[in-house]
């Protein structure tokens, strides 16, 4: 492609999942950044401002929800689209997360890599402004 490669930050503590996801998305031609826990995720997001974050929820050190909250609260990272990949289907988590504004919520075990890469493509190509009731800015 002619445009610069999209950068995707994968935040996932399980190495198998991380590796698999990375492999697939690199095949798609994206630049992949990784983080193994919440703190690392914030650090990298602030520093790199990726075009998309794939966010796991259940992580050591910092829960994915907290990560999202922090990112949404900061100027630089507020608008980064986030796809949540979680294995938790707790209703409470999902409500909270949706309020913070995400581009999608998927249960990994029910998602094939094919579908995943498709979703990533959609988000990156639409470049839609971040939705959700807790978005800091009305428009961009």
């Amino acid at each position, binding site marked *: 492609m002619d445009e610069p490669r999209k950068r995707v930050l994968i935040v996932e*503590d*399980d190495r*198998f*999942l991380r590796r698999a996801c990375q492999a697939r998305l690199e095949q798609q031609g994206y630049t992949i950044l990784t983080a193994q*826990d919440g703190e690392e995720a914030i650090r990298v997001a602030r520093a790199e401002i990726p075009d998309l974050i794939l966010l796991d929820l*259940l992580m050591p*050190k910092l829960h994915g929800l907290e990560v999202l909250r922090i990112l949404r609260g900061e100027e630089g990272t507020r608008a980064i689209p986030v796809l949540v990949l979680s*294995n938790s289907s707790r209703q409470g988590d999902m409500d909270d997360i949706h309020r913070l504004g995400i581009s999608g919520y998927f249960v990994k075990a029910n998602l*094939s890599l*094919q579908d995943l890469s498709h979703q990533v493509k959609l988000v990156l190509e639409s470049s839609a402004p971040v939705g959700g009731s807790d978005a800091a800015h009305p428009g961009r």
Partner: protein
Amino acid sequence: MRVTTLQWAVGMFSALLGAMMLIVPHRFEASTYAALQPHLLWWGVAFLLAGGGLLAAALSPLGWLVLCTHLAAGMVLLVLAPGFASQGAWARATNYVVLGLGTACVPLIARRRETETVESGGDLLALLVGLGAALTGLVIMAMPGQLSGRFYGLIRPHLPLYGGALMVTGLALAVGQFRPPSSPIIKWTLYLAVGSTLLAFAGNTAVAVGDWTGIAYYGGFGALVAMTPWLDPVLRHINSSSLRIRLALALIVAVAAPLIAAVTIVTDRDEQSATGQALTLQKTIAGTLADDISRYLSFHQAAASGIAKAINQVQMTAAQQATLLRSLGEEYPNVLSFATYDDHGHTIARGDSSPRESIGGSPVFEESLRNDGPSQAFQVSPGGNRLQFEFGAPLRRPDNSWAGVLVVSVESVRVATELQRVGSLTRGKAYVVDIEGRLVAHQDSALTGSFQDVSGSPPVAALLSGQNADGVLRYANHNGPQLAGFARVAGTVLGVVVERPLAVALAGAHTGREIAFTILLLMIVGAAVGGSFAAGALARPLEALAREAKRVGEDDATVALPESSIAEVKDLARTFGEMGSRLTARTQERERAYGALREREARIRSIMDSTSDGFIFVGRDGRVKSVNQRATELLPSGAAWAAGADFAPAVADIDVRPPEREALAATLRSLLEDRDPAGKGDLEVRGSGRVLHWDAQSAKDESGGTVGLTITLHDVTEEREVSRMKSDFVSFVTHQLRTPLAGIKWLLELAAETQDPGELQAYIQDARDANERLVNLVNDLLDISRLESGRLAVSLQELNLGAMTESVLEELGPLIKEKGHRFSVSGVERVPPVVADPQLLRQVVMNLVSNAIKYTPQPGEIVLEMRRENGSVQWAIQDNGIGVPKDAQPRLFEKFYRADNVHKIETEGTGLGLYLVRLIVERFGGRIWCESEEGKGSIFLFTVPLPGGKDTWTNPASGS
């Protein structure tokens, strides 16, 4: 001040005085009562009414009654005073004045009903009597000369003594009423002193002279004052509405009134007729005496005339006359003298040997001369008080001219005798007076012939002035009323008077009156006592019934009924007994019912209090009707949960989130607004951190109407916790299972798509690893689940920890070598066998060794030690790895817990490993713990108890 005693004393005194005035008015004939005399009857009634009224006021103190009666009694007492004062009885006068004024002033002083106790305040009666006594004493001391009457006769020599005693005691008592002495003994002494002084005074004055009113006053008040300290409480307790008092009073009045009336009226008439009879008697006696005297005189006159005629007829010579007269003299020795005198008064002849020569100038001669006829004269015998009569009959010459007079001189014994007889018969005075009212003869011979001028005496005056030959007169002199009967002696200038005091004449009637009065007093006492007794026959059963009624009320089962012979009382007692039994039965029944009710209440309360749920019942009015202890513990509220308090404020005050509070408040509102209230919800009490589930239902009565709201509170903290934990667990497990599954899925997907055989191998290997992890996880979860629920099937065998450890080490050999750790093991031989499940225990050893290997990043030292310790085998592994942070140490063996520092090593742990190890060790009765310092390393130790009763196993190698 107390006025009860005064009212009783003065009331009785006045009534007594009134009764006396009516029944024995003759006692009021002294000049001290002169003012009352004309209308003694009405005064008597006045005193009686005043006294009776005062007694009525004492019993029922109505304002107007007190006022009127006190004024009336005071006035009648004051009326008595002047009479006494005028006669010089100053003592009595002052007493009456003091008493009268004091009594009259009571309504002004004591305006309200007495409420003072016996100890407080003084007694008005004591004050007045004391004052009166003191003044009497003063009078006696100051002017003894004034006390001249007969009254003070006996005590005259001791006047100063009496005076002093009265003054001192009276003053002391009077003063004592204003400053009552605190000691009862002193008080009683004061009263007794005055009382006894007065009584002594009374005894020696009034009693001695028979002055009834004096006795009544001094004796009566003296005795009363002496007994006042004892009487006052008695009088105070006389309840005018009590049956005894009423009956006694009624009988007293019923007895006294007719008696007084009868005696007054009847005796009065009797007296009048007796007076008339007495007067008639006296007149008759006087007449008879007059006739007697008259006949006596006539007889002697006739005799003289006869003798003179005899002399005249034969014109006797002097010698003949002398012979005649002498023979007459001898024949009638009782005659003083027969004598004849010529017309000059010279003696012609005499029958006696008296030397009398002439009677010229003597009344008998002059009168005969004057009248030319017979004459009479009398004179007092010389030397004696006897009456001498001279009867003159004229001597005549043949030409019938007056020639002188024959005088027969007689000493009258008869008249004197008759007068004495009459006098003693009538117990009065009988006397004879002449035409000028001079006393000629008197029953008292000392007065005979005294010619004392008694013309001023009313009967004499009446006799002299009256036209009639006889008559009666009733008059009064300083000795009292007198009755007199008088008659003229016919044919003379003389008159006979028979007089006597009315008291003497009516002595019989007066005695009758006094007897009647005594009977009255006795009957009053008898009526009082009898009435009281008669009333007792009625009052006692009634009082007994009243007592029984009280006892029935006090729950006493037995009722003792009073006996009585009165039919109505018997009936009442019987009916009362029935009522009592019914009441008792009903009370017992009610007690039983209450007891059952209380029991039930207690049971309900104990149920309510024993339940672990809170319970609140709110009534229709929004008030808490009942609340159990648990509710107040579960849901503390600033406004306390008190029964009867309003529910709403308490709800407003509970420390929960507003939406939760609102839910409860809304249910309360629907109760108050009469919509069918029901609801439930959760309350997270912030203070205690408990979660309560409340459930409200409406409580209905039989007709289906809502009577209130029943709220149950159930502590669901643990349940919620558990369910949260469960859902936490579920989501954890879901995540932990899904993660490797997703990993496998993606890896296989990649494997399927890749063309590169190297990549293919890598992907497949990773998938296999992930699969392995998943399998282990599932096994662990199953083990944990079974261990937790106690359903794990363990096969117990004797096994050797040392051998097992070595086997594990062998299995992990490659890993150890890879990591480069140095291992040392000790104690393998020394360890006795334990009884446990080999598979499970192997897991423990495996887990701990793997951890030691894993968490020591660079090549390190790992030391394994086994030994026997206190009845169990202790197995320990020490590494010098990353160690365990202090705050993580207590929680290390918890489910899902991973210490913070393990993420350096591995991010994928489940936190189940050590938990499972702990479950297994504890399943076999052992203990597991950790000692560590972060960064330096850790020691993990666990124990397995040796089978009990087994002897020590000796290891031949070690020889121990």
